[in-house]
């Protein structure tokens, strides 16, 4: 038997455990994995190659801090870029799969052959790749943006990240911008109309529209939900960027708001006398249009 331990190897020879110290402790530390529980206690065996327990722990701690610092730095630097690039690749992959399937259908309508079967297999392979990429995006985004993911789900969180360009930039966006990320076209269209003095409405939501809490509400409530969710997402992005720890109360408050909005009935109309309402309406109409 042989075990990989952080200081090298432990081998069993003639019923005896022998510790062998690695010449590269950083490398052996990184490879110190074993599928089953070790049948010995590590520091005890380690004493064969370390002067004392103190020496053992001092060395272990030094290597652990070194390896972990490097790992932390590497992860922080690259992971948001990685998600964004994966997401872009995923979009292209989707386009390709759709396009190829269409072409294949065209061919199959004419003739089914060995070549078309091969063709289909390749497309299935691409679909498997697509699932893998989706899974990877989900894993990474949950890790680097736990708060955004908890509120919005992996897909929307990754899209927001992509639109913003990086976690840092997303963390510095105001809630109002997060609310309409992905709806820039309709926003600028509306702004352009307003500038010309025409009536226009700015969009209520961008990417976050696909969130079930917004999508499943009636239209007139979606704006409020989107605004609330965007506000919480803005806080989440800041938490994720500066702190990185999950604060469940954020997602909780979004869920509560949704329940509240869903249950909310239309305001009873009977209570107001008709006369007054008409007057009010006229007043409203006289108000100048928003610019």
């Amino acid at each position, binding site marked *: 038997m042989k*075990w*990989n*331990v*952080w200081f090298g190897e432990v081998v069993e020879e003639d019923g005896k455990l022998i510790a062998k110290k690695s010449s590269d402790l950083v490398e052996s*530390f990184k*490879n*110190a*994995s*074993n*599928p*089953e*529980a*070790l049948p010995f*206690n*590590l*520091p005890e065996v380690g004493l064969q190659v370390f002067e004392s327990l103190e020496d053992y*722990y*001092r060395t*272990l*701690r030094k290597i*652990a*801090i070194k390896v*972990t*610092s490097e*790992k*932390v730095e590497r*992860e*922080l630097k690259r*992971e948001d870029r990685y998600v964004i690039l994966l997401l872009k690749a995923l979009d292209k992959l989707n386009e390709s799969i759709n396009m190829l399937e269409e072409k294949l259908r065209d061919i199959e309508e004419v003739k089914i052959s060995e070549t078309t079967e091969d063709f289909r297999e390749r497309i299935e392979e691409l679909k498997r790749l697509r699932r893998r990429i989706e899974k990877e995006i989900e894993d990474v985004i949950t*890790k*680097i943006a*736990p708060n955004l993911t908890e509120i919005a789900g992996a897909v929307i969180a990754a899209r927001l990240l992509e639109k913003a360009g990086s976690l840092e930039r997303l963390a510095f966006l105001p809630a109002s911008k997060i609310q309409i990320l992905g709806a820039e076209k309709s926003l600028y269209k509306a702004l352009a109309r307003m500038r010309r003095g025409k009536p226009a409405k700015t969009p209520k939501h961008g990417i976050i529209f696909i969130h079930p809490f917004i999508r499943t509400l009636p239209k007139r409530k979606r704006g409020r939900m989107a605004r609330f969710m965007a506000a919480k997402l803005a806080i989440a992005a800041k938490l*994720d960027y500066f*702190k*990185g*720890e*999950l604060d*469940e109360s954020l997602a*909780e408050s979004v869920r509560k708001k949704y329940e509240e909005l869903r249950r909310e009935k239309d305001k009873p109309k009977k209570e107001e006398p008709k006369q007054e309402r008409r007057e009010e309406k006229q007043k409203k109409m006289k108000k100048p249009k928003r610019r």
Partner: protein
Amino acid sequence: MKEVIHNVFIIEREGREILATKSKYGSHYGERKIGEFREWIPSRSKLAAMILKGHIIDIKPDWKVLYLGAASGTTVSHLADIVDEGIIYAVEYSAKPFVKFLQLAEERRNIIPLLEDASTPWKYNGIVEKVDFVYQDIAQKNQIEIFFANIDMFLKDGGEGVIMVKARSIDSTAEPEVVFERVVEELGEKLEVIAHGSLEPFHKDHIYVHVRKTK
């Protein structure tokens, strides 16, 4: 002033009783330093909340501890005050909070930081030794499974463990009481449940479960 367990005190301050650990180190997460004591804030640390709820585990100064879900090290910093002759193997999965944690690990001599996923304990199975105590605070759906896997691999026979369970992270739709009942039962199938209880009002919908590994 009363010593609850090694280096853990209840001290009188401005007419109020507060929990604190005796420490020669400075403040780590913004807690007050009162003389040689660091205030241990129950709303920040579930372990502190458990002690203040009256469940006291006699953690010995020389215990070896496996800590899962170390985050930025709020609780670990106090635990490191307690096991001042022991070792804490601290596992955390996400890099961001670990930046802060690393400052703590550099300062203390008894903390071994590991940036690993607690759901794959075999990956650090050549680093962590057999421990006396496993502490877990991970908000994941499969947290019970993770707890079992780590206990199987690292906890000594007769060793103890504490898991902090949040109802919503296991099942967000069921009533917390129902979830807790199920969790305690599941833990009891493989381990001896010594005690369990709520962490209200410090942490909403959370319980602690204190277990022992029996052969």
